[in-house]
Every structure is written in structure tokens, then in C-alpha cells.
């Protein structure tokens, strides 16, 4: 099934992926010490996403996987994104412990009774 050439090709691909992962990790570490404001978080997460893509595509063999397995992987991720978005909207619009992104004047004080509908 797999001959020696296949093995060498796979081994080389794995080695390159491993080096890339470590290089990305060090890039991520370095970026954390630059003063980028909110972009520190973005840089960290974008680099993590690239690393995750390498692991999923090459190590977990999504590259060679059939449509059904790819669909399961995408559904897992997609449902998570939907749930995060829905829960996030819920939490970010609550008056209890408002987030920094919420303007205080939008919200009634908790002492004035339950929050009414915003118009």
C-alpha cells in the first residue's frame, strides 16, 4: 500500500510541520512582548489558529479525509461558534456587571428595579 517513497514524503512533511509549529510558537511568544494593545490578543489567537490548522490538516489528516469526516469537523466548530455568539450576546447585554464595551448610561441602575426594555 505505502512504499518507501510515500513514507519518506510523509516523514518530511511531518518534520516541516513540526518545525513550523515550533517557529509559530516562538513568534507568538515574541509578539506577546510587543506593545500592540488589543492586537496582542489578536496576534496570539491568529497564530494559534494557524497552528491548529496545521495540526488538523496534516497531523489529523483532514487533508486526506473524506467529505463526511470533514463535515463532522466543521459542524463541531460551527456549532461552537454559534453557541459562543448567542451566549456572548446574552452576557454582553446584561446590566449585571456590565462589560467595558457597554456604555453605562444605556443601562438602568440595578437598584431601580429590573432592567426595562431599551427603546
Amino acid at each position, binding site marked *: 500500500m505505502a512504499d518507501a517513497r510515500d513514507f519518506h514524503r510523509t516523514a518530511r512533511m511531518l518534520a516541516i510541520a513540526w518545525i513550523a509549529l515550533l517557529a509559530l510558537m516562538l513568534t507568538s511568544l515574541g509578539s506577546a512582548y510587543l*506593545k500592540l494593545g488589543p492586537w496582542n490578543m489578536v496576534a496570539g489567537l491568529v497564530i494559534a489558529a494557524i*497552528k491548529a490548522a496545521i*495540526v488538523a490538516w496534516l497531523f489529523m*489528516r483532514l487533508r486526506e479525509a473524506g467529505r463526511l469526516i470533514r463535515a463532522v*469537523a466543521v459542524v463541531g466548530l460551527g456549532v461552537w461558534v454559534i453557541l459562543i455568539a448567542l451566549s456572548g450576546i446574552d452576557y454582553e447585554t446584561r446590566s449585571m456587571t456590565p462589560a467595558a464595551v457597554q456604555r453605562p448610561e444605556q443601562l438602568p441602575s440595578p437598584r431601580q428595579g429590573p432592567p426595562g426594555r431599551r427603546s
Partner: protein
Amino acid sequence: MSAIATVPEPRDEPDIGKLGMWTFLASEVLFFGGLFLAYLYGRTHWPQGWATASRRTDVVLGTLNTAVLLTSSAVVALAVACEEDAKRRRWTSRLLALTATLGVVFLVIKGVEWHADWHEHLFPGAKFALDVPGAQEFFALYFVMTGLHAVHMIVGIAVLVVLARGRDWARAGHLEIAALYWHFVDLVWIFFYPLLYLVERHG
């Protein structure tokens, strides 16, 4: 009963074991996903506490552990490749043993880190060291996230040890599935690393 026996063997079906593991991993995404939501909530609601607390995690050990785990993932992928090549099959057990060893190294480093956190009074409780709102919540989440990840590591190490000791018949078809699980545990850590160790490091 006899009707079941006459059903022909399905052809061109996807590898059911792999599909099962991917389905399980999709549910694991949601399992860990809740923790990421908790993190997002904390980070947007107590930015000060989150910043103060996340500067107290050990970036050296965190980076070392990330490297260990990424390496272990590459090694287990190589073990799968060896298993598929008849001439290199004898390497599979050794590579699986190496992967499990790297997993143990990860847990030892994590243990050292937890030990230091405990002595610096960073475990949530009455003697908690940081007096900033949200800092305690950060460390509560940190211990839940890393603890849950460590439980997954222990399960993964146990599976790898069983496969490393097993004969060929035990490995057939199971190795790639076990490797998928191991890679997933690695994936989770890839996102923990910037969130727990790198945020606000420059401050």
C-alpha cells in the same frame, strides 16, 4: 434476528472508527468551548483583574510545555506513518512510548507549575494573593482549564501505553484513532497557551 444476518456488508462506507472519534471530538469542542466562553466573559468584564492575574502565570514553563506537546503530536503522527509501512512497523511501539513519555513530561512540568502557584497563593481561596476584582476568577478558570486538560492527557497517555505494549492485532485500526484524540488534546493546549500565558505579558 435472521434478517440482520442477511444484510450485506456495506461497501464504500467511511471508516466508522475514525468517524466516531471525530464525532466525539466535535462534542469535546463544545465541552472545552464553554471554558473559552467563560474566559471571554472574564476578559471583557474584569480586564484589570484578568491582566494582573495572567501576568502571574509562568511563561517559561508554559512555553516549554507547549513545545513538549507539539513535539509529542509530531511523534505520534510519525508512529502512525510507521505503522502503515511494513518495513518500519517495528518503530511504532517505540514512537508511541516516546509520545507517552513526552505526555508524562508535560504533566510533571504542569505539576511543578501548579505547586509554585499554590505556594504563591494563586489558588482561589481566603489567602488569595491578588487584590484585584476578577483576578481570583481568572485563576479559578486557569485551574479548571489546565486541570481538565490534564485529565485528558492522563487518558491519552493510558491509551498510548496500551497501544505501545500491544501486538499488531491490537493496533490495527486503533492507532490512528488514538492519535486523533492525542492531536485534539494538543489543539486545545494550542489555544490555552496564548490565552493563559501570553496575554498582557508586555505590561
